């Protein structure tokens, strides 16, 4: 389904720990939503000096509430653009494009799954958990963050799946440590056949390593900086191994944000690996 650009009225704005949760009326985006999709929001108003969109994973979509479809997304304040968004109030409008990106692939048959969210990276995993469970897959969730304040979605996750493990780097909530410290035990507990994860790149790489050690797949959603979100600017690329065994720079906005962890060359991010398709043509530039 093609993305649309919508002027979305803000239905509610809720402060949740270090984050702000937006529910907006966006029927076109809600209609096409699948877990893993994201939206790109214009910031600063019509004559803004901030000309690029900000991308947010869709945390929920509701098309059956008896009124126009709504979506939810979580904003963490990083700079002037996200600050402008968190200052918006119910009744105001946001210019959104979506649903964007390639969503998480779902198993053809029920498979036990562990979902791992770092910080507000849990956002796209909540609707995914609901969908996996509805299809009969047992689901466990691990949430991690630097501090307790930066955790997100613990209650929602508990409501969905019951079994939620929490870790924080400083021990202010849950177990002190990293999500990957708890991952092996969770995989073994439910006999997981797949891992889904969203969060910072270091975490995704570590999740991929654990998946490989257990000979199971990890589907991960990256949080790359993007200028357009629709596939035209070529700024959000990652080095990814293709089915033909050759690696290319691919766009995380349209070819991702969901990738199979094994195909992403995490250690080469930010470099130009010489074996990349077309790297030989870069000499002299």
């Amino acid at each position: 389904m093609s993305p649309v650009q919508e002027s979305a009225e803000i239905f509610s704005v809720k402060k949740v720990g270090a984050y702000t949760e937006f529910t907006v009326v966006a029927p076109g985006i809600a209609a096409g939503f699948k877990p893993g999709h994201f939206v790109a929001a214009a910031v600063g108003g019509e004559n803004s000096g901030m000309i690029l969109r900000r991308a947010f994973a869709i945390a929920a979509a509701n098309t059956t509430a008896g009124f126009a479809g709504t979506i939810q997304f979580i904003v963490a304040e990083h700079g002037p653009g996200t600050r402008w968004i968190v200052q918006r109030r119910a009744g105001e409008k946001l210019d959104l494009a979506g649903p964007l990106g390639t969503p998480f692939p779902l198993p053809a048959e029920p498979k036990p799954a562990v979902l791992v969210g770092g910080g507000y990276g849990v956002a796209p995993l909540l609707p995914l958990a609901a969908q996996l469970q509805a299809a009969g897959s047992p689901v466990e969730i691990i949430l991690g963050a630097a501090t307790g304040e930066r955790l997100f979605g613990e209650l929602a996750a508990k409501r969905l799946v019951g079994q939620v493990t929490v870790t924080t780097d400083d021990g202010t909530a849950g177990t002190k440590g990293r999500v990957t410290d708890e991952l092996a035990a969770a995989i073994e507990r439910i006999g997981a056949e797949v891992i889904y994860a969203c969060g910072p790149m270091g975490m995704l790489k570590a999740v991929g390593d654990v998946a490989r050690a257990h000979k199971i797949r990890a589907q991960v959603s990256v949080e790359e900086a993007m200028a357009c979100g629709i596939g035209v600017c070529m700024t959000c690329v990652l080095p990814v191994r293709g089915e033909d065994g050759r690696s290319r720079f691919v766009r995380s906005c349209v070819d991702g944000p969901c990738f199979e962890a094994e195909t992403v060359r995490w250690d080469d991010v930010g470099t130009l690996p010489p074996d990349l398709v077309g790297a030989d043509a870069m000499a002299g530039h």
Partner: protein
Amino acid sequence: MADMTARLGKLELPNPILTASGCAGYGRELHQFFPVSELGAVVTKSIQVRPRSGRPTPRMAETPSGMLNSIGLQGPGIDSFIKHDLSWLQSVGARTIVSIAGGRTEEFAELARRLAGHPAVAALEVNISCPNVESRGQVFACDPVASSRVITAVRQVADPNQPILAKLTPDVTDIVQIARACNESGADGLSLINTTLGMVIDTDMMKPVLGGITGGLSGPAIRPIAVRCVWQVRNALPHMPILGMGGIRSGDDALQFVLAGASAVSVGTAVFGDPNAPMRIKAELEQALDARGFDSLADAVGYAHLDQFQRDARAAIKTKETVA
């Protein structure tokens, strides 16, 4: 309603709103938002002879009213482009201006040769704002001789039915000198302007933000530079058709370029923030022309250069025509 037909030399387009090279891929992504056949033309991302990986990330930094990019012309190469992208553009009825780029004069010529006779190619935009491998990476369009060599070589082998536009960088002392060299070498028109070189330093890491260190600045921040370049070239070479671009994000912005002397405009960075921008700008420009009493886009091209006497003379002719 003003007649929106745009003429770039012998190239006639139904309207003057084009995409800008590198800001619309090869059309497919924007086609999700509006039919790209509604554009005056799609100007493709620059295509090269071989596939290119592009530069390492980070490739982008947002700046006040603009952005820096350092993509490094990532692209599939001419074979894949013709097979997959140009054929798609043809299938949806899009007029296509193919942007060609190279590191050597012969590469530009080879690309023009490969595209000759292809029915989907309306024109070539020769991106000479790239580094010349044989001149220690100096940008072709910074040197009138190097610019002239590329345009001459392309002109010799290009399809005579495919007009060639030379795309110039504003990073020169005198853009008119380069424009003149291109004109004399057989360019049918000029695309003004490419990005201007910039840089941002991350003060936490205390190093350049971009993987490529420097990058091209685009967006409204460079609009006054672009309008100035169009004005200067129009003034010096009034008969040379100009495709204007640089920070256009409204119909009023587009009108500035037209009044300065552009026969058509490209919408670039605005697309990143608003995928529907080209269609919105087309409608806004039409309204702006109507509001000022222009019967056609052509009447507005270069109008800002006319003095009061010339404006009065035009008004008198128009009144006479209306009465007759």
